[in-house]
């Protein structure tokens, strides 16, 4: 595939946390570029700074030093209103703990980003329904999150992340709370979305999940240890293998 435009570009990124009198230097100069349509996994042990990096990429947190361009827009000193707008417009989040709103139906959860875009109700419902169909949960639209299985919850979360048609999907340990089979199903879905051209970043510490992306960035102690393209393992094949093994 040809990479046309650069989606994420960070240069010399630093971030430290202050706890009392101690300062913890978490990111020590990260340089990193993601082009449109890429599927990248960020790996690293806990404390390597991968979550911090993802928060900065997700405009949930701000870097101390360095620059961050998202689809050509510089992300710097944003006030909360603009940050919220950018998050809504550019980014879709998928969390380890799904983070669905538990008193809203699956459909309403998916429609939330559209609500904040000011899309009118009918269009919203229609679009949300479309994405629920895409993740195969059209029949569960009226169910509350606690009536769904973990895999189904994560699919709803994926549908929600897709609903605002973002430039980049950010997934923070998307399979961390799921068993292997469900993990592979979710990854299959994410791969499918990537096949359609969406740029995806996955933070994980699981090797097999990382190998289902096209590129692995290894983070250790706040610097990039290794950044290389890998041959993508299709989740469907991995599943077959796993099943055969059993």
């Amino acid at each position: 595939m040809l990479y046309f435009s650069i989606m994420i570009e960070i240069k010399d990124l630093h971030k430290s946390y202050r706890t009392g009198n101690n300062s913890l230097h978490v990111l020590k100069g990260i340089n990193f570029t993601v082009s449109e349509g890429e599927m990248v996994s960020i790996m690293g042990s806990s404390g390597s700074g991968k979550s911090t990096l993802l928060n900065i990429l997700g405009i949930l947190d701000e870097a101390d030093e360095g620059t961050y361009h998202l689809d050509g827009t510089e992300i710097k000193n944003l006030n909360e209103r603009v940050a919220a707008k950018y998050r809504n417009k550019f980014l879709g989040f998928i969390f380890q703990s799904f983070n669905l709103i538990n008193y809203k139906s699956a459909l309403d959860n998916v429609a939330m980003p559209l609500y904040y875009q000011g899309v009118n109700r009918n269009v919203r419902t229609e679009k949300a329904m479309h994405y629920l169909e895409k993740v195969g949960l059209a029949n569960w639209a009226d169910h509350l999150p606690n009536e769904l299985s973990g895999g189904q919850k994560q699919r709803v979360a994926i549908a929600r992340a897709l609903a605002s048609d973002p430039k980049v999907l950010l997934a923070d340990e998307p399979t961390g709370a799921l068993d292997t089979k469900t993990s592979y199903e979710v990854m299959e879905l994410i791969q499918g979305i990537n096949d359609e051209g969406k740029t995806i970043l996955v933070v994980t510490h699981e090797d097999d999940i990382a190998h289902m992306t096209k590129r692995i960035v290894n983070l250790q102690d706040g610097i990039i240890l290794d950044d290389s393209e890998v041959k993508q393992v299709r989740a469907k094949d991995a599943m077959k293998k796993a099943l055969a093994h059993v």
Partner: protein
Amino acid sequence: MSKIFSRDSWSEIIQALSSNWFRTLLTAFGVLWGIFILVILLAAGNGLENGVKQGFSGMATNSMFMWAQTASKPYKGLPKGRRYNFKIGDVDAIKQNVPNLRFVSPRNQLGGFRGANNVTRGLKTGAYNVYGDYPEIIKQQPMDITSGRFINYADINDKRKVAIIGESVKTGLYDPGEQPIGTYIKINGVNFMVIGTYKKKSNGGGDAEEAQKEIYVPFTSFSQAFNMGERVGWMAITAQDGSSITKLKDQVFDVVKSRHSIHPEDDRAVGSFDLYEEYSKINGLFVALNFVAYFVGILVLLSGIIGISNIMLIVVKERTKEIGIRRALGATPWSIRAQVLLESIFLTIISGMAGIVLASGVLALVNYFMEGMDTSDMMFLNPSVNIGVVLIALLILIVSGLLAGLIPAQNAIKVKPVDALRTE
């Protein structure tokens, strides 16, 4: 802003509030109780005020009564302790010299408290107060004419010997069912024809029974029949609306003093009772009572509002993660703040309305039970609040809902999305 009133915002609020019904109800109860107490207190104050003021109803409250006493200072060669009487000429002099007076009614009186029998009709006798009056007196001391008519100026000019009798006089002197109009009664040996009957309300808590035991005859006939000459027993003076009798009364006294050679600084020569002053005192009492009702009611309401504020703080704390999710999905700080504020205002207004409805229900019930009773002497009548007070209460509710939500809303947006999401 337009988002605030959209269907979506409201369904969000309903969803959020109904996710914990029991807590929402408990919270709402605080405000409901507050506004209930406020309305009931105001209504009770109003009822008391209505009850007391019904004694004054129709009465010209801007009035005073004055009578002659004895001179307490020597003046122009006259000794102190001298007795004097108002004369009929004083009336015109007062009218001419003091502006803004509406009525100046001279009065004479026979009989009195525990007086001897002075009225007879056939074999029946009774002790009644007999007044010689001008027609204006009915506007100063209102009474309902139940049959016939009251005194008019033809009676005054022709010195007709006619009388208007109270309902109790009628029951005392007549057989049940007997029609008094056109019959004669003998007052101190002089025959008067009965031309009307009246019924009076009690005078500001006075004896209602005694008030019906009066007989009114024309002033001029009274003077002639009972040898009063030019003497006037006392006067009822009413000022025009807009000028207070309390301010005018000194001018009236001055006129009287100069006409009767009384020392200008002799304050004890003229006795008076200022109804307006008494009325103002009672009015002041009710202003104070109203103030107390507002004070107590608003304090109770305040505790309800603090309850709401508290619960909203807990709700925000509980929903920290949800707020984080919403912000990650693109909720602006303003939309988060607006939601908390709207929730708080909505909760306050709904529970406040419920309180007002409940209070109105209780008042309607009280009124329903009071309807069957004779309330004319109960000192409590028609407890109610007017729509203005309800609107004020509603305004207080909106403002307080806003205040209750302010701190929680600020707390909600202080949460950083990344911290909120980390809360497990």
